[in-house]
């Protein structure tokens, strides 16, 4: 059984909680005592029906205000797959929460209310999914019961959304007409919409092919921890432990250690359970090398002919997550893979309107929940890939030097020219449009 992580985004009242509640309930992810508790609360508040949103809205502030303000993680499994849902609020003032939930997702469900059609927020949700590199998008056109299960309504929404999505970097997009309330096309195919030939939402989630989403080409291993037992039995043991970020490592491979550039071979790949022949993402593994080199946390092991950029200068899309705005000249700590450095924002290239994708090049700051493109310089080199190549070696966070809060999430779009294969200018990744 494998694991699918997906995020959900929808505007208030699109039916996100109802949908999640139904997925959980039909797959036994909700227990009777949880259901009894929310039934009781719903009754006490005088609701006419059970409010499934109470299941996911865990914090008191959310219960009081009746809105979802943070990312909540929910879990369910079917005989086919185990699922982790990052349930995120849809309003623009929670863009950062959406970005957070999207950062680890394999798939995003964007909810659209069939009566309202493609709204600004639906477009924003799709943009965030593409910005964060989520490989699969599902547009769930909800409340089909309220439009008489009408095919033309669905077709119009699909057409409009697809037009918009063609401006984004989404490769796999599926449309499913549903009624979360009545269960049409959620778990079972709906009899009310014979014109729809596709799978139910759950079937799609169970079967969407995620095997090729992992980057198995660009071999990257950020060194996380050096295992040195210093016991008699393991006197000379020196293992480099970490999680494979991308690519496939094999015993005997020639590798290069960055930033030093020293070359050696892989003597052994092992976990506590013994030796493994190959290691690929997301395996945590310990690597033993042929030569004794000076390697520490923050270094990266790769293949000689395919290396990340070693650079102190790069451009990135940044989602800003703090009240105090980001401006050119701002200094932060930056954490990228297992490496932490000092960073300064050299330039704010533009701020992006997340609803229209318009670029405001006159912008002088990024406020809370705003997204823009910046140029960053660091105190010591980073080992960078473009985010579209690898989320792990292309993503970073910015940390405020006084509050120590995480204030920005960054995705590298230009990492400087790679060392061996120079890249033509036009190959520069543009996240949108």
């Amino acid at each position, binding site marked *: 059984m*494998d694991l699918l992580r997906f995020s959900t985004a929808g505007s208030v009242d699109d039916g996100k909680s109802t949908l999640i509640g139904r997925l959980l309930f039909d797959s036994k992810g909700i227990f009777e005592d949880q259901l009894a508790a929310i039934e009781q609360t719903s009754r006490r508040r005088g609701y006419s029906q059970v409010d499934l949103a109470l299941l996911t809205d865990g914090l008191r502030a959310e219960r009081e205000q009746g809105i979802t303000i943070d990312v909540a993680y929910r879990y369910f499994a079917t005989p086919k*797959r185990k699922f982790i849902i990052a349930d995120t609020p849809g309003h623009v003032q929670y863009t950062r929460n959406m970005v957070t939930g999207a950062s*680890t997702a394999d798939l995003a469900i964007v909810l659209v209310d069939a009566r309202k059609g493609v709204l600004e927020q639906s477009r924003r949700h799709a943009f965030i999914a593409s910005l964060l590199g989520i490989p699969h998008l599902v547009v769930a056109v909800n409340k089909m019961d309220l439009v008489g299960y009408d095919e033309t309504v669905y077709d119009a929404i699909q057409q409009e959304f697809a037009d918009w999505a063609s401006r984004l970097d989404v490769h796999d997009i599926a449309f499913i007409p549903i009624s979360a309330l009545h269960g049409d096309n959620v778990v079972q195919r709906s009899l009310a919409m014979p014109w729809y030939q596709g799978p139910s939402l759950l079937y799609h989630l169970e079967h969407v092919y995620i095997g090729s989403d992992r980057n198995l080409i660009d071999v990257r291993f950020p060194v996380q921890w050096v295992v040195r037992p210093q016991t008699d039995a393991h006197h000379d043991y020196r293992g480099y432990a970490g999680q494979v970020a991308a690519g*496939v490592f094999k015993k005997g491979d020639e590798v290069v250690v960055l930033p030093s550039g020293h070359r050696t071979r892989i003597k052994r790949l092992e976990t506590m359970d013994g030796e493994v022949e190959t290691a690929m993402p997301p395996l945590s593994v310990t690597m033993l090398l042929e030569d004794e080199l000076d390697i520490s946390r923050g270094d990266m092991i790769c293949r000689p002919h395919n290396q990340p950029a070693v650079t102190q200068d790069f451009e990135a899309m940044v989602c800003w*997550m703090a009240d105090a705005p980001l401006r050119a000249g701002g200094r932060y700590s930056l954490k990228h893979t297992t490496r932490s450095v000092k960073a300064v924002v050299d330039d704010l290239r533009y701020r992006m309107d997340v609803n229209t994708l318009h670029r405001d090049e006159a912008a002088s700051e990024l406020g809370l929940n705003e997204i823009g493109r910046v140029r960053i310089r660091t105190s010591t080199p980073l080992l960078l890939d473009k985010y579209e190549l690898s989320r792990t070696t292309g993503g970073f*966070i910015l940390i405020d030097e006084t509050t*120590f809060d995480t204030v920005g999430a960054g995705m590298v779009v230009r990492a400087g020219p790679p060392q061996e294969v120079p890249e033509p200018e036009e190959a520069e990744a543009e996240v949108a449009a």
Partner: protein
Amino acid sequence: MIEPADLSERALRRSLSHLDALESESVFIMREVAAEFERPVLLFSGGKDSIVLLRIAEKAFRPARFPFPVMHIDTGHNFPEVLDFRDRRVAELGERLIVASVQESIDKGRVAEELGNPSRNRLQTTTLLDAILEHRFDAVFGGARRDEETARAKERVFSLRDEFGQWEPKAQRPELWNLFNGRLRRGQHMRVFPISNWTEMDVWQYIQREGVEVPSIYFAHERPVFRRDSMWLSTSVFLPNGPDEAVESMVVRYRTVGDMTCTGAVNSTAATVAEIIAEVAAARITERGATRADDAFSETSMEDRKREGYF
């Protein structure tokens, strides 16, 4: 000779199982903490979740020793089977065990037992915070999972606590990708939950796969119990039954391991891990709902206790 193309073809098809993926993520989290903090500690209660934590620590650091000690917050109201297990397991691993005692906190006047409330669940918080201060721990591993409870569903893997151990749900740091922010200001510490993304089912499947031992009270056994707050509680010196609470001998097991005074037993004949897995698969009540007297009080009781520094 395997050609690279061949290899990645096979690799494509062979994605990691969900348990491998969860294990790998948890190992990564433990190593991050070991690398970024000065003085971590791993909380071990003897329960199934902390048994998994110990296993993950082995996976992360062997053949070396753990770069941190193991600590038990001893309420003094433990199941004797669990204490036996705790000592045996830590000895097997050859790691260092610290025992922080709630009884000592009571004797020193740091906390007082509430009249009429036999549970020492809340008192643990003071003992834990005192131990954190005494040993100057800056990161504390716990075995909490997000599927346990709705407040936990929103808690970060790296959960920042102030010097009173308090959790501030509104001021949580965003947590993106696998980039954990471990920066601390004076007096703060981090609670770290490496198995946040595991469910009760994952935990049991992992215990089965790894063949690790769990305390005997997880398996069906005969025990004198009485009914209180719609739970079956074990009679013990810590918790005598009341005059109108009849003691019966029943075949039960425990779904969670906590204080003897507030952990309920469930009717069960599951005698092996495989039978427990079958039971969990069929269960219609959450493990907390079934077995914890203290969580039933209010819909936000976990959030309240976490704000006070609880796990």
